[in-house]
C-alpha cells in the first residue's frame, strides 16, 4: 500500500507540473521579482529597522516573507489540483483504487510539500547574494526553519482543499484562490513588521498563521531566536494540527455524492 501511495504522489506531481522544469521555474519568477526588484525599490524609502535587537535592511526582511509567499502560492494549488481531479472525473477514478480515501488527500499534500519546499529552498538559494551578510542559519535553527516551511505548506494546502470541496463551478476556482491567499499574505508579517502596523491590522495579523511562520522563519534565518519564537513555533504547531484534524473531518464527511 506504501507503493501505491508513492505512485499517487508521483501522479499528482506529473499531472500538475508534467514534470517539466520550465513550469516550476515560471512559478518562481513572480515572487523572485519581489526579491530583486520590489525589495530594492522599497529599501530606498524604508530605512533599516530593529528586530529582536538586530538592525535589518528591508530587502533582508522581505526575503523570508517571499519564501513563504512562494510556499503559500504552491500550497494553494492543492485545492486547484483537487478541483481539477473532481472536474475531470479523475477523483471518482482514483477513489476506485484499492487504497483508503485519506491516501488521496495525503498524497496531494505530499506532492504539495515536495513542490512548495523545493521552490522555497530555491528562493533562499537564489537570494543568497543579497542575504549572505545577514544569514545566520545554525544547526539549532534549521528545525525551526523547516517547521515554518512545512507548517505553512500543510495549513494552506489543506485549507485550500477544504475550500475546494465546496466549489462547484470553474469560475469560482480563481476567485477562491485569490480570496484565500491575498488577505492572508497582506494581513501578516510577510511584507512589514507587525509591531509597527496599526492596531487593527496587528490584531488580524496575530490571528494569522502566516505571521507565526514568517516570524519563526526570520528568526531562524537571522539567528535571532528567542523564547518568543519558540512559543510562536508551538502555536504554529497547534494551528497545523487543528487544520489537519479539520481536514480529516471534512474529507471523511464529504462523501463522493456530495462533492
Amino acid at each position: 500500500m506504501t507503493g501505491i501511495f508513492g505512485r499517487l504522489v508521483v501522479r499528482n506531481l506529473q499531472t500538475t507540473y508534467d514534470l517539466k522544469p520550465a513550469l516550476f521555474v515560471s512559478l518562481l519568477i513572480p515572487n523572485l521579482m519581489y526579491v530583486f526588484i520590489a525589495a530594492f525599490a522599497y529599501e530606498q524609502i524604508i530605512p533599516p529597522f530593529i528586530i529582536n535587537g538586530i538592525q535589518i535592511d528591508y530587502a533582508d526582511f522581505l526575503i523570508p516573507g517571499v519564501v513563504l509567499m512562494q510556499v503559500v502560492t504552491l500550497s494553494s494549488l492543492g485545492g486547484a489540483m483537487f478541483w481539477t481531479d473532481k472536474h475531470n472525473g479523475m477523483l471518482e477514478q482514483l477513489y476506485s483504487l484499492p487504497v483508503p480515501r485519506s491516501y488521496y488527500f495525503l498524497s496531494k499534500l505530499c506532492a504539495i510539500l515536495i513542490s512548495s519546499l523545493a521552490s522555497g529552498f530555491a528562493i533562499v538559494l537564489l537570494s543568497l547574494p543579497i542575504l549572505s551578510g545577514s544569514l545566520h542559519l545554525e544547526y539549532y535553527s534549521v528545525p525551526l526553519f523547516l517547521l515554518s516551511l512545512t507548517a505553512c505548506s500543510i495549513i494552506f494546502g489543506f485549507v485550500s482543499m477544504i475550500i475546494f470541496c465546496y466549489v462547484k463551478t470553474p469560475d469560482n476556482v480563481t476567485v477562491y484562490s485569490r480570496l484565500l491567499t491575498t488577505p492572508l499574505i497582506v494581513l501578516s508579517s510577510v511584507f512589514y513588521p507587525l509591531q509597527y502596523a496599526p492596531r487593527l491590522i496587528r490584531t488580524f495579523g496575530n490571528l494569522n498563521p502566516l505571521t507565526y511562520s514568517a516570524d519563526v522563519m526570520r528568526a531562524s534565518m537571522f539567528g535571532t531566536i528567542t523564547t518568543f519564537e519558540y512559543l510562536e513555533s508551538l502555536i504554529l504547531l497547534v494551528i497545523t494540527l487543528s487544520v489537519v484534524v479539520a481536514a480529516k473531518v471534512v474529507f471523511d464527511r464529504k462523501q463522493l455524492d456530495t462533492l
Partner: protein
Amino acid sequence: MTRVVAVSGSPKMEKGNTERITTCAVEVKGVSKSFGNVEALTDVSFSVNEGEVFGYLGPNGSGKTTTVRVLATLIMPTRGSATVFGYDVQDESLKVRECIGLVQQGLSYEPYLSVLKNITLYGYVYGLSKREIISTSEEVIQLFGLSEYVNRKAVELSLGLKRRLQIAREFVRNPRLLFLDEPTVGLDPEAKRLTLDLIRKKANGGMTVFFTTHNMSEAEYLCDRVAIIERGRLLVVDTPESLKIRTGKDNLEDAYLEIIRRNRHDGNLR
C-alpha cells in the same frame, strides 16, 4: 455455483465455450440508496456470475449509475448488502477495489497530459511493471485507433476520442470485474463495435463485465444476461433470448419496451 449456458447468434458464443461452470462475482441483496428524500434504488437484488457479460438496462435516471457506484464502493447503500467476489462493499471496500476496474459514465482523463501519458501513468499508478506498461499501452493505443493522437493532450481531443482514451486506459490492466457505465456514449459505430468486441474478448478470457446501457442493440449483441431497472426498482433478470420469448417480441428493444410498458401499466393500476 451456477451453471450458465451462453446463447447463440452473437459474439457471445465461442467454440468450446458454450457451457461454463461459474461462481458468483456480484451478489446484491435488497439494496436501497437514498439521496435526501429521493430514493434512487429500492430493494434491488440480483447476482452476476463470474465470466459473464451482465447488461444492466434502464431509461435515463433509472438507477443504473447509482448501482454501479454502490458496487464500486464509491457510495454506500442506505439499506441492504452487496458483495463482489464475496467481499462486502461496505466492510471490505479495499478488497472489492482490488478486484474491479471502472469506466464511468462521465468522461475521466488527465486533461493536460498526452494520450500516451494518460495511459502509461494509469498503468504506473496500478503498479504494472515498465515492460507491461509499454507493451499493453502500445496494444490498446493501436486497438482503439489512438496511434495518431499519442502526443496530443487529452483536453484537445474530440468527445469520441476522449471516450476511447478512457476505455483504453482501463484495458491496460486486467481487473476480475469491469464496470462499464454507458461506455459507448459518444463513440462512432466503428469504435463502438470495436469496444463491444473487445469486451467480449475479455469476458471470454475470464473477465466479468457489468455493462450498463440504454442501447438495446448493444445489450443484445453483447450480454449473456440482462437486468432491467426502472425508477430504482429491478423489473426482471434473464437472458435476452428468454426476454424475447417471454414478451413475444423479435428483438430486445421491443421486449424491453414491452416490459417497461407493462410495469408502468401495473404501477398505474396499483
